[in-house]
């Protein structure tokens, strides 16, 4: 008997006659009211000690330029598919020599201050937002949803997903949060309204 058959047989014997369970879903699902969504999202991202700017759609290119200048970032990764009107496209092979990465996102969650990347246009493969020390992410207003349930309805599980809530951090020393371990130590978010 293979281990697969053995495990499945043991499961059958263990719960074969146990009653099934109804799942009560009385919690707030997708589609909750969403007043002040952008402010809520911005405030929650700031709580993670990330830098947040809320700018008009026409100002995004300038805001990106300002942020990179402040950072004095010389070499910047911009994934394929990043909107051309926001920045000229560039491809850099060796990530370890890069100062910054600029991306879009797939969806953003107000209640938890989370941005989700799905490796699509303007986001690129997962390592792009991991190895550089500075991540600048542009979020469009229509990408911001109220809560976690809303975000899941908009995401495709077949794509590799990275949920980002603030800069990398650890609570391993006396359970106090310290920002900046292996991922980007600085996260900056531009919300385009």
């Amino acid at each position, binding site marked *: 008997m293979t281990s697969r058959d053995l*495990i499945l047989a043991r499961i059958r014997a263990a719960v074969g006659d146990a009653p099934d369970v109804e*799942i009560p879903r009385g919690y707030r699902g997708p589609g909750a009211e969403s007043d002040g969504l952008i402010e809520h999202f911005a405030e929650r991202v700031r709580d993670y000690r990330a830098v947040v700017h809320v700018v008009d759609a026409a100002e995004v290119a300038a805001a990106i330029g300002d942020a990179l200048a402040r950072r004095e970032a010389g070499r910047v990764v911009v994934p394929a598919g990043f909107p051309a009107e926001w920045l000229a496209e560039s491809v850099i092979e060796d990530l370890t020599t890069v100062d910054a990465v600029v991306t879009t996102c797939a969806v953003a969650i107000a209640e938890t201050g989370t941005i989700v990347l799905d490796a699509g246009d303007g986001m690129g493969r997962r390592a792009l937002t991991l190895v550089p020390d500075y991540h600048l992410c542009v979020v469009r207003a229509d990408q911001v949803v109220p809560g976690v349930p809303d975000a899941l309805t908009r995401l495709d599980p077949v794509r590799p997903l990275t949920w980002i*809530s603030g800069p*990398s951090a650890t609570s391993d020393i006396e359970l106090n949060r310290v920002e900046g371990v292996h991922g980007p130590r600085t996260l900056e978010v531009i919300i385009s309204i």
Partner: protein
Amino acid sequence: MSQTFVGMPSFPKNAAIAVQDSQLRFNLRKATRTIRGKRASVVEELPDWAELRQAGKAIKDHTLRNLERYLVQMEAAVSAAGGTVHWAKDAEEANRIVAGLVKATGETEVVKVKSMATQEIGLNEALAVEGVTAYETDLAELIVQLGDDWPSHILVPAIHRNRAEIREIFLAKMADVPADLTDEPKALADAARLHLRERFLRAKVAISGANFMIAETGTLVVLESEGNGRMCLTLPETLISVVGIEKLLPAWRDLEVFLQLLPRSSTGERMNPYTSMWTGAVEGQDFHLVLLDNGRTDVLADEVGRQALRCIRCSACLNVCPVYERAGGHAYGSVYPGPIGAILTPQLRGMDTALDRSLPFASSLCGACYDVCPVAIDIPSVLVDLRAKARHPRTERIGMAAAGWVFNRSVRLARAQRFGGRMRKLIPKRLPGPMSGWTDTRDLPDIPQESFRAWWDRTEGGAR
């Protein structure tokens, strides 16, 4: 389970030594207080926490009831997405599978994401025997590994160490450590970043666990904070994930419950910094999923105890437990310490050793663990059930049989009470010999001159 803890004495002996360590008690008190406060405030913030908790409990129970169907569905989905699925009935088989996969790549080093399942099966030790070095990359795991120490907490394995101790360990054991390292948490985190950077970039094989597996889509989910998880999950060419069979969730939408319950219960954050989700082999990686039983189907067969398999390893029960806060994690002699460990370890390992038999008693049954559990595991009830199943000392069994005989008839009880009342000056506070096990840890209450019933009969309920 891991061989590390084999031969440890029973919990009361370990705890008696641990509570003498004032540094340990100070570290634990400080850390658990911090995390309790953070958890309380982010749980308070959600108006539907109780509903999320009920849903979380029911989703897990439904999954366990239909585990066979969902495992087969998971296997098919991962295979369809280009991954390879392996089944391991026990620790030995899981270790053999992983070692074989690593050796097939020709590599002798692997990087690891913090994983309870691989600790449970003692994977690092098994790989070492095969000539493969496993490097832990989670900061707390690194502190434990460098300090040649044991983990003492599910989420923060080095919770028993304070910043000064961590600095000492880094200075002594970390090859490339800055000579002027301070004990500032920021400086310590930077040292770890520097130490592991090259290792991440050159690693060819990574080993992880997973917080959740989605049967419907074949997706694996890993929650983390530091980015070491993302490094391991994305950079190496080969990824091997060892996951307990109880980590399944039926559907993609079920994450809407667990991605709210877990971060708030474990680190006390609205969301952990990074969550990675992947389905099968992505971005050109070679992906292997090892489904691990290792005693879980035995737990599943126990009607009372099976609820322990709902556990999502958040460690909220450790942080509120008065026993854990004083005794620390090492006293439990298992990679699963605290209240959840006290019910999980004896069920996974059996109750053959003095240590495992003593674990169900490592609790005051105060119930704080049940209150905070995000999947409503009734830990006190399981503890009581396991206590009944544990083999008790002979003197205790005789004493209980005698007490049962007396309590079973009111006439006998009344006689015993009258006798006790008369002899009350002579009854010792502590019993000798094998009976001292009972009185050493209990205070004998003062015996009244007469029982309540005798008083009621004599005074007609206080009327006379």
